[in-house]
């Protein structure tokens, strides 16, 4: 019982001290902050600036501009860290074959609801990913949303149903295709005489991805990065969920088999 009081008191202390700090201007006097720093001002004003073609990203979405253009290499390594973790999971669970046996799943009502909502979630995910250069969102957000579809199918139908449509190998292949796509989009500019991760033409290097395709604003490489990133994240997270939610017996068997070999 004492531990409950301890938890309550410590949470209350954190809340009170944080509120005190914020009330006295720890985050600045107003939300959002007034008076941008020069770097932030440059990011916001240069994100979409057709009158300054050698410095702009040609994307009205400042966040995606920073993520895939201004700080593109940061995002590349961030993606590498995430996929390191996913590769670790896949290696840890390498003996497991998610069974293709299709189970019963939940009731007909739940399954019908899932069948209706799953394509809708997928559509929203595609919109988030492919409009990432125009509106809030982007590859990671869209990919994570798409992975929820796999989760919904796994819970309402069964693991076997999900695996029958998207096997472990196919998920791995999709994830690799996404990563290779990101690498290709990043490496095409240096091959054609530009700079790694270059998007629009710069003063010193004239290479440029098309800012408009068929009259629609595509912001050069941002659309491709978002597309491939969403593919890689959706497949990677689906794969992780698939392996982590495999039946206990299958995991036990795979792990025990390893031990026997070692002895």
């Amino acid at each position, binding site marked *: 019982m004492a531990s409950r009081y301890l938890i309550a008191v410590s949470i209350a202390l954190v809340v009170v001290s944080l509120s005190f700090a914020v009330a006295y201007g720890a985050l600045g006097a107003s939300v959002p902050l007034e008076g941008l720093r020069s770097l932030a001002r440059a990011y916001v004003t240069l994100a979409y600036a057709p009158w300054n073609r050698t410095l702009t990203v040609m994307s009205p979405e400042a966040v995606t501009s920073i993520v895939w253009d201004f700080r593109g290499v940061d995002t590349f390594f961030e993606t590498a860290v995430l996929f390191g973790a996913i590769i670790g999971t896949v290696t840890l669970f390498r003996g497991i074959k998610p069974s293709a046996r299709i189970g019963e799943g939940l009731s007909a009502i739940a399954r019908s609801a899932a069948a209706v909502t799953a394509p809708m979630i997928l559509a929203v995910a595609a919109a988030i990913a492919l409009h990432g250069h125009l509106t809030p969102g982007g590859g990671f*957000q869209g990919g994570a949303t798409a*992975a929820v579809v796999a989760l919904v199918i796994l819970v309402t139908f069964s693991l076997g149903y999900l695996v029958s449509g998207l096997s472990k190998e196919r998920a791995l292949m999709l994830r690799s295709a996404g990563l290779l796509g990101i690498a290709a989009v990043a490496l095409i500019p240096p091959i054609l005489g530009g700079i790694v991760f270059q998007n629009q033409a710069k003063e010193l290097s004239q290479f440029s991805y098309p800012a408009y395709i068929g009259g629609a604003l595509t912001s050069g490489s941002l659309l491709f990065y978002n597309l491939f990133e969403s593919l890689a994240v959706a497949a990677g997270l689906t794969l992780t969920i698939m392996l982590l939610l495999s039946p206990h017996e299958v995991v036990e068997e795979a792990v025990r088999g390893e031990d026997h070999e070692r002895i």
Partner: protein
Amino acid sequence: MIEPVNVALGLAALSAVLSVIATYLAVSDRDLLRALIFSALQSTAYAIIFLVLMAPDIVLVYVPVAVGIYPAVVLALIKRVGRFEGGEGGE
């Protein structure tokens, strides 16, 4: 007349209070499944706060991760370690 900005900040404040209550319930509950649901509730409150603080990019990644994928992964963990903290039925 209430200023629209105050309505938005009031919503954030309400969500903040809700998140504190949900956090307390999530930490103190011995039924891990219920704790997980409280944790997702806390995440939803945080998502509203992020939206009010004009970070829609974070909201879009926070909602699927915190309400979809994270509970699924923790659910897999709960399935392995058992639903109740400190053995069946708690203390």
